[in-house]
């Protein structure tokens, strides 16, 4: 017989994060919906209608809400994770694609692709603080961990713009390989990783000199160089790995964050573009635009363990353990 006390003892063997259910939210660009995936069962548990052409999504600082770039609706929607309802909107400027949240949780920076602007949004007041002129087709947005610098990449101008978050002015521009798509600071904020889709490279910039200090090229076996088109980049907080989505090469490159050497290529779905880590950072989810699915990678085993069908053109993803 197993009594209640025994059950409690058994359960207490597991730290709380193993019991909390990680949930992944994936935006489906051409279905105007979010797919909700239970990361334990690795199955879609819900599909929720949102605004038109949802692309970038991210978690609020308190992890209670999702912000969703509804590009064709020209707005950022606020989505409540408890009720699964859209509870409000933020003024985003036209056609928001990617965005990033300031560490203070209050300022949101959204790239307006069609207007060559970066819109700075005050989240609590739901108002626009400023709109900053940047290059053609701004895309990747990142805020430094200390909150002082905002980065936006422009796809057609082939530039990384450095913006001072105090003055909201562009203070420097670094010319980079063709079609920069995504920017990500490392944990200390000393380095900035930027992917160039058409250049086929990931550049690592020193944030003090704002110069490129290293460039990574990729050569997955049996794939023509022209198809190697890096998009999403995610760095693990332990400083160990960088994951790079290689677009129509249909692979994720696993890079050593310290030596910049590519240590593995993992086959995922077709035209993989964005990535999300779970809070534990032992799972990576990839959105595969053309095949309409996501792949789940077990980072300890460094293996793709599951493909899950979602909506048409899955774009952005967030994984959270808060419910």
């Amino acid at each position: 017989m197993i009594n209640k006390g025994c059950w409690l003892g058994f359960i207490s063997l597991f730290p709380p994060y193993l019991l909390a259910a990680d949930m992944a939210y994936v935006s489906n660009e051409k279905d105007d919906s979010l797919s909700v995936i239970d990361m334990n069962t690795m199955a879609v548990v819900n599909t929720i209608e949102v605004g038109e052409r949802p692309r970038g999504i991210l978690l609020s600082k308190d992890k209670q809400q999702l912000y969703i770039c509804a590009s064709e609706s020209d707005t950022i929607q606020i989505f409540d994770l408890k009720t699964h309802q859209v509870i409000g909107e933020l003024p985003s400027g036209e056609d928001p694609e990617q965005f990033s949240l300031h560490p203070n949780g209050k300022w949101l920076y959204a790239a307006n692709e069609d207007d060559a602007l970066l819109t700075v949004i005050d989240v609590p007041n739901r108002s626009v603080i400023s709109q900053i002129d940047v290059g053609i087709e701004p895309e990747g947005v990142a805020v430094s961990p200390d909150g002082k610098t905002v980065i936006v990449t422009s796809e057609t101008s082939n530039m990384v713009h450095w913006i001072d978050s105090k003055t909201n002015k562009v203070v420097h521009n670094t010319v980079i390989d063709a079609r920069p798509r995504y920017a990500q600071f490392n944990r200390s904020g000393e380095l900035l990783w930027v992917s160039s889709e058409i250049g086929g490279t990931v550049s690592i910039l020193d944030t003090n000199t704002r110069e490129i200090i290293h460039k990574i090229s990729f050569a997955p076996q049996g794939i023509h160089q022209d198809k190697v088109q890096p998009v999403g980049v995610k760095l693990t907080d332990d400083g160990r790995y960088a994951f790079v989505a290689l677009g129509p090469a249909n692979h994720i490159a696993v890079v050593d964050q310290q030596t910049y050497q590519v240590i593995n290529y993992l086959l995922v779905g077709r035209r993989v573009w964005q990535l999300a880590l779970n809070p534990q950072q032992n799972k990576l989810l990839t959105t595969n635009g053309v095949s309409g699915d996501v792949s789940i990678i077990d980072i300890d085993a460094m293996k793709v363990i599951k493909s899950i069908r979602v909506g048409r053109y899955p774009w952005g993803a967030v994984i959270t353990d808060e419910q």
Partner: protein
Amino acid sequence: MNRIQMILNIFLLFWWVLLPQLVMAKPLTLKLAILVETPTFASAVPDYLRPAADQGIAGAKQAIADSNRTGKFLKHHYQLQSFSAESTTELVAQALLWQQQAIDIMLVDVSSDSLVQLRQQLAADVLLVNIGNRDNQFRTKNCLPNTLHISASYSMQTDALAQWLKQRRFNKVLLISGNTIEDKLYTAAVKQSLTKFALQLVAQKKWSFNTDLRRVAGKELQAFTQVDDYDVVWVADKAQLFGQNLAYNTWLSRLVVGTNGLRANEWSYVIEAWGAAQLQNRFYQQFERHMSAKDYNAWLAVRALTEAMTQVQTNQTQLLSQYMLSDQFSLAAYKGRKLSFRAWNGQLRQPMPLTQAQALVTTAPIAGFYHPRSELDTLGIDKPLSRCNLMQTFQ
């Protein structure tokens, strides 16, 4: 001794640290011009098939606006002048005027005769960038020095379609041609592509133009296409005098490809992937019409030059063209892969979308057609078959 060393150090500091910053910050202006030979149309060509009057020039203007947006961050500025005329004489006169004004890069959308004339009359250091002419001779035997070709050759178009026919196993082709000079050149390219991809020419017919098809297309063309069994009709009608009436009017229930039906052009309003929707939107907002293939070529030509200026930080034509022909050059062009030049004949490599009126069908090179250098080189006449070796003319 110490003093000399100090002076030397100050000099070195200036030379290595301060001078490059001064040079970097120096504003640069690049002056470009575009020359368009106005096409003439037979009255039988319906209005809705005639291109916009500013075709090509609009694309160049869009690229200038895009590039200036980038340039303002680097103190680079781009200017464009444009001129259209019907006669070669007028075109040459304007080009010579520009040359006097120190404009030494000219985009040209002109006939083969005018292109040859321009090259002969202009100074050797004027860079010509062809954005409309598809004549194969300029890629194979009439190798014009210091001339780049952005527009795809006839062979790049016909190879793209032939690859698709091969993949779909539509092997048997009925070829119908009009009687203009361009139709003859295009027809020759079609026949080369049929041989290259081992497709079968069932019959070749010439349309004789003795009727107005808008009234009796159904009857006339059904009788005209009654030959042995074929999988597709390949039409060569550059002038748009009859080709648009072939679809749905063939004797057998067959597809139409070529200058009508399924077409292989550099661009079409149906292209949306790889960020293309952004370019389409920008263009539509500015010009209130769709971007045509010629607009796209002009856009590409300007972007190639301005991208070179961003990377090399110079406005010297010779250095720009050298960079564009080098291995370092890669141009993002909303087609899912980087574009580069074939250094031997100055031809831009680019994927060819195959489109029908309402959708993108596929994009050539089609998977499975391989090439040791680049799959893009399965389209068009390859190096061994070209007499051109232009590399040295750009140096």
